[in-house]
């Protein structure tokens, strides 16, 4: 398997590795994939009240392309509005990292992870509004 330089770079120097407190109301968490499928991504977004992604974190169990896809997507979302995050497509990741066809599913998982994190944040916000 030949990896692109960008995959190698993200694999060797992954960006934004870590974990935010899950119960922080500003944090949305998405966990996608399954251990028996060989990849699990946990993606977290810290989103301000005006709906801007302030920061992001990830942890990934998976091949080098899965690690690179999640690392890249955490960079991609920073500073973006919710609508802009919703518009991110897995093809953005495929192009940036030059993923081969057998690794497309890594990019799909990263897109799913970001959207799951956003959905989690929205649920939390609605919960906060209802409570107040």
């Amino acid at each position, binding site marked *: *398997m030949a*990896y692109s330089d960008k995959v*190698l770079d993200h*694999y*060797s*120097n*992954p960006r934004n*590795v870590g*974990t935010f407190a899950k119960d922080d109301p500003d944090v949305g968490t998405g*966990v*996608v*994939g*399954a*251990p*028996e*499928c*060989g*990849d*699990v*991504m*946990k993606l977290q977004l810290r989103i301000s009240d005006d709906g801007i992604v302030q920061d992001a974190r990830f*942890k*990934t*169990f*998976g*091949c*080098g392309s*899965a*690690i690179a896809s999640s690392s890249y997507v955490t960079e991609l979302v920073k500073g973006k509005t919710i609508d802009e995050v919703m518009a991110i497509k897995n093809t953005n990741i495929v192009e940036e990292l030059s993923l081969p066809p*057998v690794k497309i*599913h890594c990019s*799909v*998982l990263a897109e*799913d992870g970001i959207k*799951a994190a956003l959905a989690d944040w929205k649920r939390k916000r609605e919960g906060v509004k209802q409570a107040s």
Partner: protein
Amino acid sequence: MRKAIYMDYHSTTPVDPRVLDAMLPYFNEIFGNAASRTHGFGWEAEKAVETGREQVAGLIGARPKEIVFMSGATEADNLAVRGVVEFYKEKGNHVITQVTEHKAVLDTCRALEREGKATVTYLPVDTEGRVDPDDVRRAITDKTVLVSIMYANNEIGTIQPIAEIGKVTREKGVLFHSDAVQGVGKLPIDVDAMNLDLASLTAHKIYGPKGVGALYVRSKGPRVRLTPIIYGGGHERGMRSGTLNVPGIVGFGKAAELCRVSMADEGQRILRLRERLRDGIWSRLDEVYLNGHPTHRLPGNLNVSFAYVEGESLLMGLNGSVHPIAAAASLPPIAVSSGSACTSATLEPSYVLKALGVGDDLAHTSIRFGLGRFTTEEEVDYVLERIVHEVTRLRELSPLYEMAKEGIDLKTVAWQRD
């Protein structure tokens, strides 16, 4: 970059320099066709082939004429299984094998089933990969023509109870084939003591060249007959036509001879290195699992699941040239293999690990280390350091490791599958 470290000896081995020296004259000096009976070029080539035949036979306690040379063990497996089924079709059509066999046996069996020529029983293995000889006994029917059970497994190194199975097949009067590729040259084999009737061998796993192998075919007690799969000039007593690979056979013979002489000492040395690697991994990392049998195991094999670290990502780190730490320090890359789906053409995790009952989650994290003749203690120590470094780094990246450390039972999580 320093020289890469090779720890994938189950895949193939380098040609021993002594083997290469023995082979070289047979490419352009003694280049005759071993089947040419009319001149010295042919006679000399034939003489070299017969020496090779004696040397290969000597390694397994066979008579030289029972060694049939061919292209490798895949061909030997094909000929053994198909050749018996087709020749003995009047007697029966039932074959017994087991689930962790090499694909050369399994796919030949499946092909024979599809063609309507055989019905096949695939025996299970226990959690350490061993077949129960009593299962073999119970599976034999009056239609059984062949039992095919490998000597040692290529992924997990588990050694099958070949001698016990041989007792059963001899008592029942059923032919017994063993794909002995991984065991030969590393473990003692005696075809008579083990009641083997057919055995597949290959040169490139024992420090000989690629592209040459052999099938041992018992000549008496009983005499085994085969329908050939390749027809032509009637070479190898009609069982395998085709001009003999003289340099390859010379190399195979020399490699066999070297193994026969050095097997006992070499096995001890490699086992000690393997145990050094195993002890190091177990003492420095948590949640590591041995795949295969702890003792009925090839001395050079170590198959480990590093929980929460996907195998391909670990290979990427070990290959090293991509790793900034490795690259900056000019550390040598490490060649090993993995049972992870991501490393296979089918995108399925290892069928061998699955057969043992290893879950797909752990199969994805498995790494096979294969130690051999040229492995040094220094290499083992270096590989250990790199493994510990890479596994630790990747676990810091792993959401599963984090969850496990938080006390979450990963089996109870509702995973979102693709």
